[in-house]
């Protein structure tokens, strides 16, 4: 049983990421009515963000403010969160399985000498036991795991656990603690933005993915347009990345990202087993491919056999109509 749970919240471009609200919901599922304490590390005042965590279900929030927490480094954030853990002695810690979560959680687990379950898609309380469900072999199978020693420490995969209802009438204490963040051996010199503004692939509710059938980097343009209409993100198959149609950071599959959006539209993707591993747990899958025998149609809920360069522009127009109505 995990009565007091720390939820390590995460911001991007100054805003809380949705997975942080999902982490609060996950905490609520396993803490048997105990306390949920949000944690925010930042270089500036984070009171508004703290309030938002409370609206989404945190009981109170601890903020750590220091100049060295302006950008994430494992050392800086590690020192800050270890201080909070030291003061709060939680029974559990939950964070998103994001770039930061993946980087930071093993360090904290090692320091705290505890087990860690990474990338859970569900958490539940069975009797007194917290049980975590997570994909293995990139979603070709799943395992249920328990932590046998130490606190319940888990990172959760974005888009799998529903957030609680936002409730502006909720109130809670927001406290700030001082940590001297120092002796950093890693220094971020520069951040080169390669992604477009907006939706991150792993958190996107809609993903438009292109494969070799898209034929060129130019061929991806209509996919970006469709993604914009639907508020989604663009991904790609390994074939498309290998052919240099797009950056490897967009790759979905057994090597690359695993995504579970509400809607996945596979465009010109044949559906190799390695690609399916990265997307087959999406809620609704649409396949558009001119080869009716493509394997992708075996996992798609809806399929259109046709020329993507004809179908996508029509889809864009049709989705625009729905958006307006």
């Amino acid at each position, binding site marked *: 049983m995990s009565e007091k749970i720390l939820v390590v919240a995460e911001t991007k471009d100054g805003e809380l990421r949705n997975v942080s609200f999902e982490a609060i919901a996950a905490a609520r599922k396993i803490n048997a009515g105990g306390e949920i304490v949000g944690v925010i590390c930042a270089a500036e005042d984070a009171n508004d963000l703290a309030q938002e965590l409370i609206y989404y279900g945190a009981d109170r929030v601890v903020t750590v403010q220091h100049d060295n927490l302006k950008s994430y480094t494992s050392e800086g954030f590690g020192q800050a969160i270890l201080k909070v853990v030291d003061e709060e002695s939680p029974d559990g810690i939950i964070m998103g399985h994001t770039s930061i979560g993946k980087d930071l959680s093993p360090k904290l687990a090692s320091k705290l000498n505890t087990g860690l379950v990474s990338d859970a898609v569900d958490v539940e309380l069975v009797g007194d036991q917290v049980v975590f469900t997570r994909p293995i072999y990139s979603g070709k*199978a799943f395992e249920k795991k328990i932590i046998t020693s130490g606190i319940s420490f888990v990172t959760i995969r974005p888009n799998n656990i529903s957030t609680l209802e936002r409730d502006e009438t909720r109130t809670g204490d927001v406290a700030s603690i001082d940590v001297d963040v120092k002796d950093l051996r890693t220094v971020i010199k520069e951040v080169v933005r390669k992604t477009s503004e907006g939706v991150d692939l792993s958190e996107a509710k809609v993903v438009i993915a292109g494969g070799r059938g898209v034929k060129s980097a130019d061929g991806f343009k209509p996919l970006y347009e469709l993604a914009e209409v639907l508020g989604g993100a663009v991904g790609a198959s390994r074939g498309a990345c290998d052919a240099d149609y797009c950056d490897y950071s967009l790759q979905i599959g057994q*090597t690359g990202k695993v995504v579970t959006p509400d809607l996945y539209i596979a465009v010109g993707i044949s559906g190799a087993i390695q690609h399916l591993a990265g997307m087959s747990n999406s809620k609704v899958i649409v396949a558009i491919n001119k080869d009716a025998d493509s394997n992708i149609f075996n996992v798609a*809920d809806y399929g259109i056999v046709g020329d993507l360069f004809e179908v996508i522009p029509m889809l864009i127009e049709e989705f625009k109509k729905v958006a307006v109505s």
Partner: protein
Amino acid sequence: MNIYVLLKKTFDTEEKIVVTNGQIEDDAAEFIINPYDEYAVEEAIKQRDEHGGEVTVVTIGDEDSEKQLRTALAMGADKAVLINIEDDLEDGDQYSTSKILEAFFDDKEADLILAGNVAIDEASGQVGPRLAELLEIPYVTTITSLKIDGDTAEVEKDVEGDVEVIEVSLPLLVTCQQGLNEPRYPSLPGIMKAKKKPLDELELDDLDIDEDDVEAKTRTIEIFLPKEKAAGRVLEGDVQDQVKELVSLLKNEAKVL
């Protein structure tokens, strides 16, 4: 430079997963070097060729793991170490692995340790950072570029598609991301040479480890396959009509719009 690579064997990506009696069947499976670890091996070789020194590939596994170690030697690594836990440790987890590696690295004075950013089977991505923490050295995960100059390195890190340029001191542990390099295939002379390169085999006793010290802190209680998806619907008719029908289905039947 004293360079080490952490390597794990995994199922070939082509493999289907079969679960029998709650366990994943691995008898008939083809094993490969975890694809992300291949980037680590390649990078280690490149760094050695540029800066001098030696590349040692380390794996924790069973006697069958020799095959993947020989492949890494054939690619160009100098030495390999197999920490064979087959008889000692039944159900280790990432904690166990990192503690065993900590003991191994105790007297090694590594300048650079490379690993894959994640293994495509268990996919926890924990062992690298856990080990760095135990060795009290800095780490950078998901790197796509590594330039070493004396005691410092300039590293590019993939952060969900953006790139962070990071300056960090050595000794250092990095985990490798796709895009870092293009792993070479072993050449025939490489394969011949690899047969004669040193491959040490250790057991937990050799590292002064008691099984209890590395006992897992997590346990798998169930393994299952995802529900088979029912075959979907391929729409028919005029393309324009199909598009209209699709949007209507997504809105009214699937309710995802």
